[in-house]
């Protein structure tokens, strides 16, 4: 939970100064709009981790996630002036990332995605040196979660990722995805059931 909190907050982010009035999101956006690249770099540093994680959850490929993160921030820079004042910067960035990832997913076949994901999971378990049992279990669990996410359909994976892995509210998810609240509730419930079936053996009650 702490790691997630870190991903979504300013804590530990280089170049970001939590609590500084000068570096509030609105202020950074205003400065970046005036052409100050340093302000945009701070926006990148603040949001790059949650954005790349979100994209990775959707596409399941590290290199591709890096490329798509780059594309997301270039598009964000281009459209920064169009950002409405009342819109939340993180929600807006997640929305761009969702579009970029979806465009990429559309251009790849589902079969290719599965092969890449399976290969990544095998590499995770085999190409490293000896590790403690807990660490091995964690790696195995990472692989299981990754494969389980990949097995969900696109809508369910997106809703599940935003809610469970990125702690977005229903309203934020609706804004990012364009889904209605009832639809995303249904998708989330079904995604939970499917995920539970796969990760059940690892859950210790």
């Amino acid at each position, binding site marked *: 939970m702490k790691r997630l909190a870190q991903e979504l907050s300013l804590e530990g982010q280089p170049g970001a100064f939590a609590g500084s009035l000068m570096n509030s999101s609105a202020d950074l956006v205003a400065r970046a709009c005036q052409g100050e690249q340093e302000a*945009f770099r701070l926006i990148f*540093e603040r949001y790059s981790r949650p954005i790349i994680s979100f994209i990775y959850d959707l596409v399941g490929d590290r290199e591709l996630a890096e490329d798509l993160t780059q594309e997301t921030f*270039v598009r964000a*820079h*281009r459209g920064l002036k169009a950002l409405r004042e009342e819109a939340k910067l993180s929600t807006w960035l997640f929305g761009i990332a969702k579009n970029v990832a979806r465009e990429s997913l559309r251009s790849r076949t589902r079969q290719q995605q599965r092969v890449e994901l399976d290969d990544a999971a095998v590499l995770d378990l085999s190409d490293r040196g000896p590790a403690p049992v807990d660490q091995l279990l*964690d790696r195995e669990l*990472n692989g299981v979660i990754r494969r389980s996410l990949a097995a969900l359909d696109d809508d369910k994976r997106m809703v599940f990722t935003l809610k469970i892995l990125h702690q977005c509210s229903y309203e934020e998810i609706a804004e990012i995805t364009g889904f209605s609240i009832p639809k995303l509730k249904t998708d989330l419930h079904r995604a*939970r059931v499917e995920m539970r079936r796969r*990760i059940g053996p690892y*859950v210790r009650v």
Partner: protein
Amino acid sequence: MKCNECLNLLGAYLDGEANERQADQVRAHLTTCAQCENQFEALTAENEIYTRYDREIQISPAIWNRIAARINAEDRQIERGSKFSLAEWVSGLFAMPSLRFAMPTVALIAIALVVGLAYWRTRPLPTKPDTTAKVNNVAPPTSGKEPQVTNPEIERPTPLDQAPASAPIVASNSKRPRINTSRSTDQSDVLPDVAFTDIEDRDTASHLEQAQNLLLSFRSIKYSDTDEEVDVSYERVESRRLLNENVVLRRDAEMTGKFPAKTMLGSLEPFLIDIANLPDKAKPSDVRQITDRVQKTEIVAELRGY
């Protein structure tokens, strides 16, 4: 609160999405129901598993460097687009022409040429001055030959009077010669246009040409004496149209003192009346009566010679 209601709300409760009243009800139910409490613990354990999910992703500085490079390139492009550069403008004057719009331009010119040519071909001819007509009117006749109808639309039928006597009259009129019912726009195809000095004469010439074609068509209808009826619907309709036209032109010719035209139109009119008054399916005897008269009076030759 019942168990199924509680279970339905557990996810929202855990996500912090249940409203205050729902949250109170769930909390109250969980304290009294061990089964739902177990479900709640299972869900919490699941969420705990997801918090341990480590994607092992590092943010490489190269990502920002690539972003910065692209942003700078885009900014430069925007600046270049907005600034007027004299050097670029001058070099543009001497640069190789871009062929980007070459094809559309060529296509536009080609279309303009085609339209222009079509207009030039179909433009209304100006009224010829009288002097031209006079000069040409005194020109010697072209060795007594009849002016030729060269309209390609007309497949001229073999007149019965020119057909071999032994030629059988077959019971088929399906291959009726096609007649161009529209007025010819280029009167030079019909008769030498120098012979006409005004629009009325042109109208008369066109009318007589169409009448000639009608009579040729009528004369060429193929049928046998054993046929009960002959389809003359096309000729009948055409004849009615020409009859109306004929009456108007004949009166005009009479009023303007053009007696040869008046005589010609007057000779033609009874044939048009006869054909116009036939039923669509005429008796072979009635058709034969008219064709015999056409042949006997040599009206077609008269029309050609006009």
